[in-house]
């Protein structure tokens, strides 16, 4: 039976005494992502006293607040005051504003020492290495959220034929910039960390740099394209950064 999917009702729930979670259902979609982005943009433009920060995720927007500050501002208790503000704000952005998505190109050297598990992905998927590279770099990926580690993007949009399970034993150290596959998702490690992803390549672009004004290169809502490059180009770009 065909089903008409409507905007799920917004829920505002307290998570402890200093945070509320705005929940937009439990289905990942571009529509929800855009709605969350639009609300986040209003919070950027019209921050209120007591707003600490916010964190967008797949279907939630968590707003951290200082109840002590808010309780000194309004007539109501901090939670009432805050939820009323947020309800008004969410109402304002009912029609999703069309902030154009930014497209970020990430050059990647695939295979070899930079992508030691490309062979493993080939074995698992039954695809040739060149086919994997073509399919992986043909996609346009949406950054659903940034979390887990500094600058780590949760990307949507990988071709399902590339899906490969995580390694049985995680690697002790994955170099920064590694591009990997874990199950049906793909991603890039911004900093060196232990991890179990199948590494198929590496980008010379710094996804996270604490010295930049906005340290994370990618933000929720951005689009990412992977562009294959040679080892030589990788080394040149890497040197250029240093």
């Amino acid at each position, binding site marked *: 039976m065909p089903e008409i999917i409507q905007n799920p009702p917004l829920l505002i729930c307290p998570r402890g*005494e*200093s945070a509320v979670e705005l929940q937009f259902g439990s289905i990942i979609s571009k529509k929800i992502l855009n709605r969350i982005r639009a609300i986040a943009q209003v919070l950027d433009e019209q921050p209120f006293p007591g707003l600490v920060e916010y964190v967008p995720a797949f279907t939630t927007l968590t707003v951290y607040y200082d109840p002590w500050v808010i309780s000194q501002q309004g007539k109501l208790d901090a*939670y009432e005051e805050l939820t009323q503000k947020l309800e008004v704000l969410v109402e304002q952005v009912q029609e999703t504003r069309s902030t154009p998505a930014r497209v970020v190109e990430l050059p990647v050297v695939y295979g070899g020492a930079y992508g030691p598990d490309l062979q493993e992905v080939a074995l698992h998927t039954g695809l040739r290495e060149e086919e994997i590279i073509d399919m992986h770099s043909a996609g346009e990926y949406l950054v659903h959220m940034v979390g*887990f580690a500094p*600058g780590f993007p949760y990307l949507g949009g990988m071709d399902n034929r590339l899906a490969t399970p995580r390694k049985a034993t995680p690697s002790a150290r994955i170099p920064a910039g590694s591009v990997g596959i874990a199950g049906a998702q793909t991603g890039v490690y911004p900093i060196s960390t232990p991890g179990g992803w199948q590494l198929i390549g590496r980008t010379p672009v710094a996804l996270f740099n*604490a010295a930049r004004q906005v340290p994370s290169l990618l933000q929720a809502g951005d689009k990412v394209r992977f562009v294959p490059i040679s080892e030589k180009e990788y080394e040149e770009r890497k040197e250029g950064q240093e």
Partner: protein
Amino acid sequence: MKLTVLKSGLLTTVQDLGRKGFQRQGVLMGGAMDKVALRIANLLVGNPDHAAVLELSMQGPELRFEQDTLIALAGADLSASINEEPVRMWRAVLVKAGNVLRFGKPVQGNYAYLAVAGGVQVPEVMGSRSTYLRAGIGGLQGRSLQRGDVLQFGDVSDTNRLLLGDLLLQDRKENAFTEAAWWPEPELLPRYEENPTLRAMRGLEYNWFTENSQGYIWNEKYKVTPQSDRMGCRLQGTILALEEERELLSTAVSYGTVQVPAQGDPIVLMADSQTTGGYPRIAQVITADLPALAQVQAGKIIRFQEVSLEEAHRLLYQQEKHLLALRQAILYKLHQQ
């Protein structure tokens, strides 16, 4: 003004109140595990609340002060001494140049805070001086302190100077250190217990758990395991189970979030909590009780007690009022002189 690290201790890092505003970029908030102890240590030497201090864990370091320095120790009792003479916590202390601060057996708690007048001077990274070990940023080159490190202090303020003057008046030349003759009322200090009951609110996936599990979280005891660290307090006790297998989409988590991985032992996320997580959240420890949680040693027992949002707010305001009262008392004391 500076100090030299003679021994590093177990894990000694520079911490302040943490990074705010970067969680959406995956950068954790971090900062002191016991933020109330940090704030009190700063107040006692006349620093602003957010000044950087040293966080000492379990086995403290050995530190030599190269100039006369006004310090204060707060948080865990790690048996501090100078020249084999015990140094009292929760009060301002003038340490004379060339003397060494040492620590012994941890008597109570895990994390002690050493504030120095002027604050520990390291570069600010993303609005904070806190050490973020995993990303290698903040603090002293993004790492914990090592033997041979030299830490500089910031410029002293008028408040720092007035407090220092108070101690210089009592100072007798032959002493290695002089303790202030005043200290905060005990009721203004955090209450630490060996086996505390921590107040918490229901988590957002509370209803995902079986009825039994919903009862266990409030009625059973949980043991703090030695695998606990600045990122998470790992507990062991009655296994918590979901009514049915369900996947949570990753969403924001923070210090105090009690999440339950599939094997059923809860983890309370601590100061170095990652920014997002995907395990169901059964509870959220209230902010006012996070200092008490940070100080529970491995092997000890904790319990959770459910409180309402109103109660959690009331307890947070009470804590803020205590800190305000302490600040006012110190200012009053300074102006009496």
